[in-house]
């Protein structure tokens, strides 16, 4: 497969990138691991690519009370860094695609692509991350949950770039990203980003977000509420598990049918909650 004719622009900084994008039919190229396959299939045929892949100003991991991650930070960089209180990011990054994809692909590219079965959207939704978006109009912030609008659709308009992601550390939370795949390297059949804070046997906070089960990451507040302020007994878990699939209609595709996905969601949540409880 071969992409259609396309123009290429490599800016020296974000400002130049934004300037170029205004009024041009342009797509941001970072690592290209999501974009290039779509160019090859000619699903996307923008006039221009704006290559921000090597802008040093966008590639960083700044730890602190709030950690910020530059959008062109590569998966392998996140996979090789344990960020205290945000271990789930490392966990998820190490499960993206395969080694080669992780060597090139970027966190911002993956988030902006918003594949409904990809890994980060659920993770950053569970983390209540803030997306920091730049355009020539300036900066705006948006909650991850609002950022993802649908399959391959975010709130970014064509003149905007996802510049960085800001996340508060979940100190003292047990956290894990689990991904069920039929074959290694595939997108998630179902993925679960789970973080819970247990204090003296009681669940103080819970974050439950799935990927692969709908148009966009699915945060199940009902399930979270079922276990908050509980001791996470079998019955608490089973209530959360039931709540997690209420009102949701996962897609049917080559990875599995809708009903099967629901069953996997339930089992995945149940097993993961039990593991966390038993480990505490």
């Amino acid at each position: 497969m071969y992409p259609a004719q396309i123009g290429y622009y490599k800016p020296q900084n974000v400002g130049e990138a934004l300037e170029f994008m205004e009024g041009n039919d342009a797509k941001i190229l970072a690592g290209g691991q999501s974009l290039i396959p779509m160019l090859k299939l000619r699903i996307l045929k923008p006039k221009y690519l704006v290559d921000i892949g090597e802008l040093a100003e966008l590639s960083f991991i700044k730890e602190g009370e709030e950690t910020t991650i530059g959008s062109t930070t590569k998966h392998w960089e996140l996979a090789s860094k344990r960020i205290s209180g945000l271990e789930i990011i490392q966990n998820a990054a190490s499960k993206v695609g395969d080694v080669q994809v992780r060597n090139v692909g970027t966190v911002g590219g993956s988030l902006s692509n918003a594949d409904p079965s990809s890994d980060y959207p659920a993770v950053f939704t569970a983390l209540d991350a803030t997306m920091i978006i730049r355009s020539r109009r300036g900066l705006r912030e948006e909650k991850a949950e609002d950022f993802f609008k649908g399959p391959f659709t975010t709130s970014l308009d064509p003149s905007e770039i996802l510049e960085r992601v800001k996340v508060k550390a979940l100190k003292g939370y047990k956290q894990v990203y689990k991904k069920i795949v039929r074959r290694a390297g595939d997108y998630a059949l179902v993925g679960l980003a789970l973080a819970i804070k247990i204090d003296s046997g009681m669940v103080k906070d819970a974050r439950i977000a799935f990927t692969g089960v709908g148009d966009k990451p699915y945060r199940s507040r009902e399930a979270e509420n079922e276990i908050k302020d509980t001791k996470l007994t079998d019955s608490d878990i089973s209530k959360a598990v039931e709540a997690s699939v209420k009102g949701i209609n996962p897609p049917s595709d080559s990875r599995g049918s809708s009903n099967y996905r629901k069953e996997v969601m339930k089992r995945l949540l149940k097993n993961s909650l039990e593991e966390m409880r038993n480990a505490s």
Partner: protein
Amino acid sequence: MKVKVNGVEYEDEVEPRTLLVDFLRDNLNLTGTKIGCDTTTCGACTVLVNGRSVKSCTMLAIQANGKEILTIEGLSSDSKLNPIQQAFKDNFALQCGYCTAGMIVQAHFILSHERDLSEEKVRDMIHGNICRCTGYQNIVNAILDASRRMRA
């Protein structure tokens, strides 16, 4: 664009849409790198760009501008096989040979980044490279064997 491939500098004009793998194969005549799929799945086109393995079907040639590329052709001088190549041969780690270039380049990347290799680890790190002939066991053995040879 300018690239250094296997230690040699090249300068060429390319259409922005040209994929790196086509640039290597068609412009530079380095046909050792193969094309096996169009979905970034098979890894037959794996090369190193600035030391990291990438699928060259999923990178534009222009993205490699100014960078250093290593392909299968750069792994050995004509007279002597590199230890990974030798290990592939000694362990019957190839049959039709089509995945072999990508597999060996990926093995090269793994061996230059990972010290403690187990069979499981190797399997996990090559799952972006599909082989339809060997069933992988001999490939895994070859990579572990090469790892021993390179440390010896």
